């Protein structure tokens, strides 16, 4: 089998009034750390939704870990770490319960947790260093801890591909650094990490691959080759500040 985690072939997605992605083709290899960048509304979230199988492209095909998106959903290949602002942090749910949600795809229709599920959740919390916080309500955590909990949910799910939407938004430098370290360690253990980010400054230190999105994939490849002034300014219509290119 090819070493491809995600493959989109000539994918086009149109919402009722506007085009979101046009003729998009991309192959993301396993065990890579890919930063997806582009302006707001340029199709980053649509790309994520296509990978998760939430949006069906009108044209083109999507393959995730060698499966179609429906099968990939059943196998729990892809896990999603939502943007902080899309989560209701007042929800009466504990850290442990959030991580247990990673197991729902594998459970019976009543979603009754078994000992194996509990063990997976505990293991995942241990791996992200959040086991001591398992009984906390999720709003009682710092920004970095909140992200770790959702990463633990992805681990409990047993996903191969982790999609993170703006994971660094609102994090201080220390939390960002430690989250990046966690993600890189997961990549080294065989996970494929894909994150949408606005943080262009730290991108070359974080991601080994970059995908530039502007209604389609402008360029994708190893950071050194693709994260160039020319391509990035093409993606952002020339509006760039304070970014150092090698």
């Amino acid at each position, binding site marked *: 089998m090819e070493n491809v985690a995600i493959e989109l072939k000539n994918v086009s997605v149109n919402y009722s009034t506007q085009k979101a992605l046009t003729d998009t083709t991309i192959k993301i290899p396993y065990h890579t750390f890919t930063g997806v960048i582009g302006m707001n509304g340029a199709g980053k979230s649509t790309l994520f939704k296509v990978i998760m199988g939430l949006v069906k492209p009108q044209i083109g095909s999507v393959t995730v870990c060698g499966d179609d998106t429906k099968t990939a959903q059943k196998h729990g290949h892809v896990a999603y770490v*939502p943007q902080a602002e899309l989560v209701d942090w007042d929800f009466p749910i504990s850290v442990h319960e959030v991580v247990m949600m990673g197991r*729902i795809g594998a459970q019976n229709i009543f979603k009754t947790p078994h000992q194996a599920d509990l063990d997976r959740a505990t293991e995942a919390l241990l791996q992200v260093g959040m086991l001591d916080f398992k009984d906390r309500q999720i709003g009682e955590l710092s920004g970095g801890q909140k992200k770790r909990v959702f990463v633990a949910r992805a681990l409990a799910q047993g996903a191969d591909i982790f999609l993170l939407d703006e994971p660094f938004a609102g994090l201080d430098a220390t939390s960002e650094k430690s989250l990046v370290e966690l993600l890189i360690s997961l990549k080294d253990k065989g996970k494929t990490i894909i994150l949408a980010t606005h943080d262009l400054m730290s991108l070359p230190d974080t991601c080994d691959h970059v995908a530039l999105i502007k209604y389609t994939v402008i360029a994708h490849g190893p950071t050194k080759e693709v994260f160039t002034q020319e391509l990035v300014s093409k993606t952002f219509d020339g509006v760039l500040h304070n970014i150092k290119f090698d």
Partner: protein
Amino acid sequence: MEILTQIFQTNYLALIIEPLQYAFMFKAMAVSVVVGIACAILSCFLVLKGWSLLGDAISHAVLPGVVIAYIIGIPFGLGAFVFAMLAVVLIGFIKTNSKIKEDAVMGIVFTTFFALGLMLISKIVSSVDLTHVLFGEVLGISNESAWYTISILAVTSAIIIIFRRVFMVFCFDPTHAQSVGMPIKLIHYSFLVLLAITITGSIQTVGIILVIAMLITPGSTAFLLTKNFSTMIWIAVSISVVSSIIGAYASYYLDIATGGTIVFVQGCVFLTVFTYQTLKQRQL
């Protein structure tokens, strides 16, 4: 002094037991408690999902269904259910196919349905029946209606409790649920159907207008008091049951509306909890 003597000499047990000797009171009490439990459980999900207004919309939209059922002589729960689903589908359809925001769409749909109900009532049904539909009349409930209400609400409550983990994920993170292959549309519409059935089942007790409070207040009060979802359901149910019992007794001894009293007590509990919480936070 006389008052004190009176207070000490009163046989409270008798006061509690006396109304229950009447079949109509016993029935009213049982039905009110079941309605209270069913609405309280649902209210926890509605409040967390941010769907309180949907309960409002559905309960108003069932009015023409109730009137038409009355005219053609079918069980009014059935008529109400049909119109509840019509409203839900119409709200969903307009929202998906226009740029109007959901709250506005709900407002338009439920007021139009409610208005149609009022038109039908003014032409066909006597004003006494109107009051029953709008404000509930649990004391006059027939055996048949009582059993109907109790059984369907028992079933909906049981379904929600059995699938509580599914509905909790649906409220907290539907994107995640969908990304691991859960049938989110099926869950969405099942929830709406359960909501519609609960509303139609509760109307006879508290009426179209007050059922909204039963679907919002207990969950909101419980939300202020706990950070645990199961505890939240227990608190909401307890508040609701106590309010229902107080409402039933008050309507017996003070000769006042049962539905109104139930909802009023719930509102008072909410305000008490809110005041307590606010004062506690100020002190910290």
